[in-house]
């Protein structure tokens, strides 16, 4: 895969994620972690090759069908991508509104989720008034609010302290236990090692390691 006429950012990648699995994507900056996630959440297309998701080749998916597939994918962006003119509650409820749900059917769930990620007292708050960690938790709440089949997270613990990082990780584990496939791109080697979850390690756009990483591995 390449952006425009630029160099290849991902090459010779072949792997499969089992439904309900939990993986980390690791690697140095520029290794292609975010690009790999973009391929899966349909923000980029492979220059060559196939990307299968939920039994479909998403690189050849008709444009009209893409929105419905995206609703099954939760994404936590590295830069959060919260809508500044919407309150925390409105931001979190966004995927459910887009999916056409009636407010009465989901508003209590949204409130409960926000309380769970520690934003009980910040539901009215606008994103500009939230601290970095609060924004991150809000972005996570928005990504998981519609119980996606797969959750992709780009550095989800990058702006939070250790305690909150572990809490977010436990949220991901809980979602995974409920059947959501999880793929997290991270630099947090400590979290990866302690989780005992398999790792896709990228370097220079290629996958150089695939498997469980023990705590001694760098």
């Amino acid at each position, binding site marked *: 895969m390449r952006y425009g006429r630029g160099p290849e950012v991902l090459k010779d990648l072949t792997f499969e994620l089992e439904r309900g699995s939990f993986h980390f994507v690791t690697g140095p900056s520029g290794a292609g972690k975010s690009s790999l996630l973009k391929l899966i*959440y349909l*923000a980029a*297309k492979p220059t060559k090759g196939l990307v299968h998701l939920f039994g479909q080749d998403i690189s050849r998916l008709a*444009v*009209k069908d*893409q*929105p*419905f*597939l*995206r*609703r099954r994918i939760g*994404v936590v962006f590295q830069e959060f*991508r919260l*809508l*500044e*003119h*919407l*309150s925390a*509650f*409105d931001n979190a*409820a*966004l*995927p459910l*509104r*887009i*999916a056409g749900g009636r*407010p009465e059917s989901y*508003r*209590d769930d*949204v*409130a409960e989720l926000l309380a769970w990620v520690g934003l*009980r*007292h*910040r*539901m*009215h*708050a606008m994103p500009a008034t939230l601290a970095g960690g609060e924004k991150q938790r809000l972005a996570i709440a*928005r990504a998981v609010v519609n119980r996606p089949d797969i959750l992709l997270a780009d550095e989800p613990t990058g702006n939070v302290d250790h305690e909150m990082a572990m809490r977010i990780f436990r949220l991901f584990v809980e979602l995974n236990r409920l059947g959501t496939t999880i793929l997290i791109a991270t630099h947090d080697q400590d979290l990866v090692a302690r989780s005992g979850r398999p790792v896709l390690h990228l370097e220079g756009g290629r996958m150089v390691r695939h498997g469980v990483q023990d705590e001694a591995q760098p």
Partner: protein
Amino acid sequence: MSEMFDAARWKPAPFLPEADARDGALIFVVAVLSFLACLMALAFVSADRAAHGWAQQLVGEATVIVRPKGGESPDAAAARAAETLAGVPGVSEARALEREKAYDLIRPWLGDVTDLEDLPVPRLVTVELDRRNTPSAATLDQALKAQGLDGVVDDHSLWLKDITRAAWAARWLGGGVFLLIAGAAAAVIAFATRAGLTARRDVVEVLHLAGAEHALIAKLFQARFARIAAVGGTAGALTAAAVGATLRMAGGGEGLTPALPIAWSDLLVLLPCPVAAALVAALAARFTADSMIRDLQ
């Protein structure tokens, strides 16, 4: 404050920000362009009517120059010509111009001559014609000759050609300038829409990645910019209507605007302006949003 949040009373906020500092500038630009387009439309309608009126006036009249022959006096010859012409089918009325009026007509060329009576000044007969059954100049000429009268019939055809040509030019010029301004308005709206969409690219991307259908995103921007353009178009049309009404009240055809007499009914042409501006903006926003969403694929 935070404990006060009651999910049961929550009302979803609009996907797009309610207002934007850029909206005011866009409304102003659309209002100015709509105002100019409306003024041009008013000028076009009144010019068209004026030209039509001039042409109708010329078609409905003819002038006959009567030259007395033999010992007949000019006044007697003119009276006989008027009587003859009044009997021609298609002539509503024929009237010999009074001697004083005939002198008045030639006085600018001859100066203040006191003994005009000694000059062989021809007499004029004005003929009003039935517009549905207008006799030709040749028919009038034959009628005069049959009565032994020497006259030259001027059915204004020479002037009519010039007037018709001038009216045609005025119509096309007015229409062309109107289209030019309307096109400029459309281009500005399209440009502003693109700028507005680019400024809200973050919203477009988040909605897109959260699974919003393309039609939903395009409709949001379409409605937003159509509303802005409708407000600008209404302001422009109202201002133009106020200017038109002022010109009408200040004299209409006999006052400030003798060449372009504005009628009250002309103001009706301004009614579609807000709708037209909204339509142009909606189309521009739709095309722009569609192309931007395609780029996100």
